[in-house]
């Protein structure tokens, strides 16, 4: 994999200086079933700079999750281009896409999606394990992060023994522990109560500020939209508004 510009590699963090975190150009995603054509994403051109805290907002079916999946390399676009940190995602092989996800992206899902057979700590350090980070460093990073997100002492619990809010905090830890360039979060607060949601949003905003990690959310949670510095509204797969609040 190679970026468009020179890449800076430091302490596991890979960032391309001066390059947008995400850029899409004329992006389309079209599904065809039994002759019926559904345009899930229509001609989306969007640039998200490094360190942004962006919400993709819109009603159900507006295409925000599909757009997020395409940016994350989980779904291939029908047409158009996507660049993550200057890397042309659409030209990558399956193997390189997996590597990109591992090294530069973090995911937070609505349903937490922790691996049920692993403990909270093992879940959080999973991407570091895949990247062959030495055990001592893994533990150090995860324990530090767990203290910060209020999960200290719960490292050995399996997901089934954690509350929804705790599980989502572990999911956030898993997403940011590798210090990725970009964290993609799909409805991360949808299954949480107000207090837990607020705490989680605070946590992610803090990580965004302190680590400089770019966060892109797909959500219709107004609390999250209120905290975002930019809200991109989608309707019927197309961008209808791009509200910057800096």
């Amino acid at each position, binding site marked *: 994999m190679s970026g468009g510009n020179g890449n800076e590699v430091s302490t596991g963090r890979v960032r391309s200086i001066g390059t947008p975190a995400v850029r899409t150009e004329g992006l389309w995603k079209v599904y065809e079933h039994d002759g019926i054509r559904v345009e899930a994403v229509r001609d989306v051109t969007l640039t998200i700079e490094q360190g942004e805290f962006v919400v993709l907002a819109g009603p159900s079916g507006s295409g925000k999750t*599909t757009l997020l*999946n395409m940016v*994350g390399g*989980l*779904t291939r676009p029908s047409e158009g281009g996507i660049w993550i940190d200057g890397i042309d995602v659409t030209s990558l092989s*399956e*193997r390189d896409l*997996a*590597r990109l*996800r*591992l*090294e530069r992206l973090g*995911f937070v*899902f609505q*349903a937490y*999606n922790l*691996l*049920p*057979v*692993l403990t909270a700590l093992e879940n959080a350090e*999973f*991407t570091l*394990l*895949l990247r*062959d980070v030495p055990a001592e460093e893994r533990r150090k990073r995860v324990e530090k992060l767990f203290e910060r997100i209020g999960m200290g002492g719960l490292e050995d619990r399996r997901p089934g023994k954690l509350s929804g809010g705790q599980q989502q905090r572990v999911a956030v830890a*898993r997403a940011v522990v590798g210090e990725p360039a970009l964290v993609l979060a*799909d409805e991360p607060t949808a299954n949480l109560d107000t207090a837990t949601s607020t705490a989680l949003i605070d946590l992610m905003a803090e990580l965004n500020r302190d680590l400089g990690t770019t966060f892109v959310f797909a959500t219709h949670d107004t609390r999250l939209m209120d905290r975002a510095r930019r809200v991109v509204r989608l309707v019927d797969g197309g961008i209808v508004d791009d509200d910057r609040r800096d």
Partner: protein
Amino acid sequence: MSARGRIRLRLALRNLRRHKRRSLLSGSAMVLAMALLVFSRTIAEGGHEEWIDSGVRMGDGHVSVQAPEFRTRRTLDYRLSPEARAAVRDALGSEILTERLVATAPRLMIQGLASSSAAALPALIVGIDPEAERVFSALDEKLEEGRWLEPDDRLRAYVGARLASRLKLKEGSRFVLTAQDAAGDITGQMVRVAGTFRSGIPEMDEGYIQIPITTAQEWLGVPGAATSEALLLRNSRDVGPVRRDLEASLADWEGDASVLEWRESMPELDAAVRMDDWADYVFHIMLFVIAATAIVNTILMSVMYRTREFGVLRALGLERGEVGRVVFIEGMILTAISGLFGMALGAAIVWGFFRNGLDFSAIWDMEMEAAGVVIDPVIVPRFHWNQILQSLAFILVIGSLASVYPAWRATRIDVAEAMKFEE
């Protein structure tokens, strides 16, 4: 092992433990299949060894040395000369053969006629060395009346019970044997009945007579000659090496002496063993299918159930093939553990309950005869570790094949679609 390899192994092991009941149920199907396989193979092996042992003791041994044409033309023209017999005895003195040999027995076999005042009937007349034959043959155990031949006997005969009955002969009765001698003349020899036997094989009971080999040699004008030297081995699996060794030793006697295996000298028994083997193979295939179905079912169910989880693994950076490998490893672990348990269970059942034999006398209350062999209703199972390990290897192959499809299914999961999957 690489870090990724360790993760795959950890995930596979924990997933098997995660659904203990499902893993146990599938595992027990395979344990049962493997145990049945061990049981079936040891019984089959024991049964076949029993057949072969019984057949070779009644017949020409595991291996026999004969004149090349004797097999097709059973006349005295095709006999082993005293010199050829001496060469065979020399060859049998080698260390390799001595270790594998239980007994050897010379035989002088001729088709002839047995005549008494009551009747004249065709018979196979076999000159034997009573001392050597006592170790070799099981015929002395089939005594019905009188006694078995003694080393000092000269004009005595051991006669099939039905033949004796039809000739109206009893212990001590005199009767005449008539056959063609080495010169081609018809010649007769009067003998007395030493005893009669009932082998359970109709052909033998109705037309088989044993006399001392020295009497036969003298009567037929072939001093020191024999039509075959029969070899009884410790194990029927040694037939191949013994044959090769003997053939090499007798290379100089190629035109006068040939080496035959029991499969050649008793083709009916060979066919019966092969047929039984095929029946066993069919049974084993059925067991393998059961085992394979259990594995496919368990692993495939697990794949369907964990669709979302596989999607997460892919999203986190695992490659398509790695997700497949996690599933494959699960199948292999399940197979290997179940296979080993099954092997131990099968061995324990055979050893614990049937080491002295599996008694079928309730099904057939007398000795059964097939392919010229008396089948004992008590079958003693035999362990051959290479066979048991072969079965384990088969199970592992079946397990790996059965895991391929679920593993392939796991690699085909669409990540974005998988995230919508409700567990």
